[in-house]
Each structure stands twice: as structure tokens, then as C-alpha cells.
């Protein structure tokens, strides 16, 4: 039992180490990122490079969340190894497309489509037909046609890839970009450096799909793939164990969090009254006192009412309203109703305004000295 436990622990440790190790990029080398690494990076990664080789405008791309890969199928239905790359920025809703670019990744999937654009199978570059780990959304509304080719666009969140971009065969362009999303490092290499490799990969693909292999080669390939199959089994096993462990920790965390919230809410309910409790309590008390003490309580209310009215007074313009002045017998108006706005009169005239300011200053000073004097008298009196 101990041996089994130690074996599992060892495998788990190896897995953890492997998740953080990937090959350093070079001209002909591709990245091997773990799914976890890539899913984190794909959320918001940037590719910035200056195109000095192609006859297109220089570009500086920032991608958000999505890459669209448009696959090319020639009209005769023959499968070609060309992928047109569309970079789709989900936030700005912009698509960056350069038709001469081709996506090729050693550890990336190849997609086989039927005439309607449905996925027949996926090829991950290592000879394994699988959809595991890939998230594919069919967005056929981006399908378009021209006289040469059909483009089926798919919105793909990649996993476990590093990728290289290079120019189309027919365009004879020279630029190849190798991009390391972790170190944000890109490297340009020429097409000649990759052509051979590309052809080899294409042959690998054809070989792995079994189209051009003899029965003996199929058996040999099957035997060769046994270690990969075993390795994948353990990868999946360990991955599932790690996920189980993470779920367990999350569950415990949620349980503690819920317990804490329950305790806090209980304490709140115990000590903090409801929102309108005090309003209702004071209303109830007011009614009771008013009914019990009658005019004694009302007197206080009247005084409080006076004080409240006094303190809610606001400064307004001083306006004297003079009503119509009529002759009493025939009701003939002698002087029409009018309003005299003392504030505007005093403000519009500079002299009056000055005098008014002096007057208010005098009033302020008088009140202040009167209060001081009264305070002095009170002090002497006691």
C-alpha cells in the first residue's frame, strides 16, 4: 500500500514539475506548453512584431481572447495544409486578417472538414485523433467564398501549443514568426528554414492518418505509439487526481466561507435591529405620550415646532408686496398692485450696496458684543 502511495506521489510530483517546464524556443523548435499554461495565456496575450518583409502595412496587433483560424479548401475538395489566420479582437470586435499567412504548429491540431464545414476529425500533430482539451465553436457566419477557395472559420481556444506563422507557399514571402507567449519573444526566420520541416510534417500527417501506410508500417506505428498511449493514460489519471484535489480544497473553502457568513448574519440579526424599527418605536411612543399627557405634551410639541420652523428658515429676497389700492365705493383702482424687491434695489446700486454691507457689518458686531456683554453679566450674576 505504501509503495502505491509513494508511486502516486512521485508521479504527481513529476507532473507538477513538468507543468512548469517547456522547451526554449529556437528557429526550428516548437513550444510544448501545458494546457493549464496556455489557457491562462490565451486570455490576453499580445503579438507585436514589425513586418519588414511582406508587402503589407506594418502592424502591431493586440489580441483579446480569441483567435479565428480559417481553413482553406481548394475547389476540387483536395485537402491542403494551409490555414489562414484571422486574429479576432473580442473587445474591439475587429478582425485582423492577412490571407498570405499560414498557421502551422507541431503540436497543434489539423482539422478535417466535410463540404458543409462540419468537423470530421482533429489531428493534434502527434498522430492522435482527438478533440480532448479543445474547445471549438462553429461560427459559420464567417464562411465566405471566392473564386479559388472556401474558408471555414473556427473560433478555437488552443491548448498545449506553441505556434509559428509563416507565409503562404504561393506568395513567396519570406517572413516566418515564431512566438513564445510566455516570454513574449518572437523570432523571424526565413521560409527556406521551414519548408523542409513543413513538408515533413505534412508527410507525418498523411502517414499518421493511415492513408499511405502499408499494413506493416501501421503495426510498427501502433507499437511505437504504445508508450504515448500509456503516457497519456497516466497524464489523464494524474490530471483527474489533481482536479479532484483542487475541487476538494474549493469545497472546503466554500464550506468555511458559508459557515462564516452564517455566523456573521446570525450576529447581525441578534444585535442590529430592523431598518424601520426605531421609526416605528418612536411613533408608538409619541402616540402614547400624546394620548396620556394631553396638553402638557402638546405644549412641548408646539415649542419644538416653533424652533424647527425657525431653524428651517432660509435667506430669501426681501420683497414688499403692495396690493391694489381701490376707491371703496366704485372699486376703482387708484394704485395698481406692485412688488418692491429691496434686495435687488440695494444690489443694483453701488452706494446702497456699500451702505447695506456696512449696516450688516454693524449688526454682526452689535450682536457679537451684546452676546459677550450678556455673558459677562451672567458670569457676574452667578
Amino acid at each position, binding site marked *: 500500500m505504501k509503495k502505491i502511495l509513494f508511486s502516486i506521489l512521485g508521479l504527481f510530483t513529476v507532473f507538477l514539475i513538468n507543468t512548469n517546464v517547456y522547451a526554449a524556443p529556437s528557429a526550428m523548435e516548437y513550444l510544448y506548453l501545458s494546457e493549464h499554461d496556455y489557457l491562462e495565456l490565451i486570455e490576453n496575450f499580445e503579438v507585436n512584431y514589425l513586418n519588414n518583409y511582406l508587402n503589407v502595412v506594418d502592424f502591431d496587433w493586440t489580441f483579446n481572447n480569441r483567435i479565428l483560424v480559417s481553413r482553406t479548401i481548394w475547389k476540387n475538395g483536395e485537402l491542403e495544409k494551409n490555414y489562414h489566420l484571422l486574429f479576432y479582437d473580442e473587445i474591439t470586435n475587429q478582425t485582423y486578417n492577412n490571407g498570405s499567412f499560414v498557421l502551422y504548429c507541431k503540436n497543434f491540431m489539423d482539422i478535417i472538414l466535410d463540404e458543409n464545414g462540419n468537423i470530421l476529425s482533429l489531428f493534434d500533430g502527434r498522430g492522435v485523433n482527438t478533440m480532448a482539451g479543445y474547445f471549438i465553436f462553429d461560427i459559420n457566419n464567417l464562411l465566405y467564398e471566392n473564386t479559388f477557395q472556401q474558408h471555414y472559420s473556427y473560433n478555437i481556444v488552443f491548448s498545449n501549443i506553441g505556434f509559428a506563422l509563416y507565409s503562404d507557399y504561393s506568395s513567396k514571402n519570406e517572413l516566418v514568426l515564431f512566438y513564445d507567449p510566455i516570454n513574449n519573444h518572437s523570432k523571424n526566420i526565413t521560409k527556406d528554414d521551414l519548408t523542409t520541416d513543413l513538408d515533413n510534417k505534412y508527410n507525418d500527417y498523411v502517414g499518421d492518418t493511415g492513408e499511405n501506410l502499408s499494413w506493416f508500417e501501421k503495426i510498427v506505428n501502433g507499437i511505437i505509439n504504445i508508450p504515448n498511449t500509456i503516457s497519456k493514460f497516466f497524464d489523464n489519471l494524474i490530471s483527474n487526481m489533481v482536479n479532484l484535489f483542487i475541487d476538494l480544497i474549493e469545497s472546503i473553502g466554500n464550506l468555511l466561507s458559508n459557515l462564516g457568513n452564517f455566523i456573521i448574519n446570525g450576529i447581525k*440579526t*441578534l*444585535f*442590529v*435591529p*430592523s431598518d424601520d*424599527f*426605531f421609526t416605528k*418605536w418612536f411613533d*408608538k*411612543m409619541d402616540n*402614547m405620550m*400624546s*394620548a*396620556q*399627557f*394631553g*396638553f*402638557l405634551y*402638546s405644549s412641548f410639541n*408646539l415649542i419644538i*415646532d*416653533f424652533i424647527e*420652523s*425657525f*431653524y428651517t*428658515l*432660509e*435667506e*430669501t*429676497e*426681501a*420683497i*414688499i408686496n403692495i396690493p391694489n389700492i381701490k376707491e371703496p365705493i366704485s372699486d376703482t383702482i387708484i394704485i395698481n398692485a406692485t412688488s418692491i424687491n*429691496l*434686495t435687488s434695489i440695494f444690489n443694483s446700486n453701488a452706494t446702497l450696496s456699500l451702505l447695506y454691507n456696512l449696516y*450688516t457689518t454693524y*449688526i*454682526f458686531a452689535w*450682536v457679537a458684543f451684546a*452676546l459677550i456683554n*450678556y*455673558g459677562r453679566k*451672567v458670569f457676574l*450674576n*452667578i
Partner: protein
Amino acid sequence: MIIETLFNLLYGVINTISLLPNIPNFPNVFITAIQRFKNLLFDNLQLLDFFFPIEIMKVAFPIIVILVIVQKVFKIFRFAFFKR
């Protein structure tokens, strides 16, 4: 819960005075007259504000009240403790 219970208990204690006979309130006519007088007074204070700023009165009024109360309270205490 606890605070609400305490306040409700306090209300229950105070409410025991309802066992005593009620004191009658002012007649409604009297209260209405007082209210009308108050409205008449405060609705026409803008002219007074022009000559005697209300803001000054708002500051001076509590000071005067405090001085008067201090004087009275001091006399009460002096009488209570020193009989003078």
C-alpha cells in the same frame, strides 16, 4: 433581536403610566390658531431677514438660551446645596 427586545421592554415599562387617568389635550381650535400664527410669523420673515440677518439669529439664539439656562441651573444648585 436583543436591542429590539430591550426597547420593547422599555416601552412596556413606560406604557404602565397609561393606567393613570389621561390629561386632556388642547382644543383643536386653539392648536389651529397657534399653527396659523406661527405660519403668519415665519412666512413673512424675509423682510426681517433683510434688516436683521436670520443667520445671525440662528447662531445667537442657542447661545442666549444656554446662558439663561446656565444662570437658572446655577441658582437652583446653589439653593439646593447652600440654601442661599
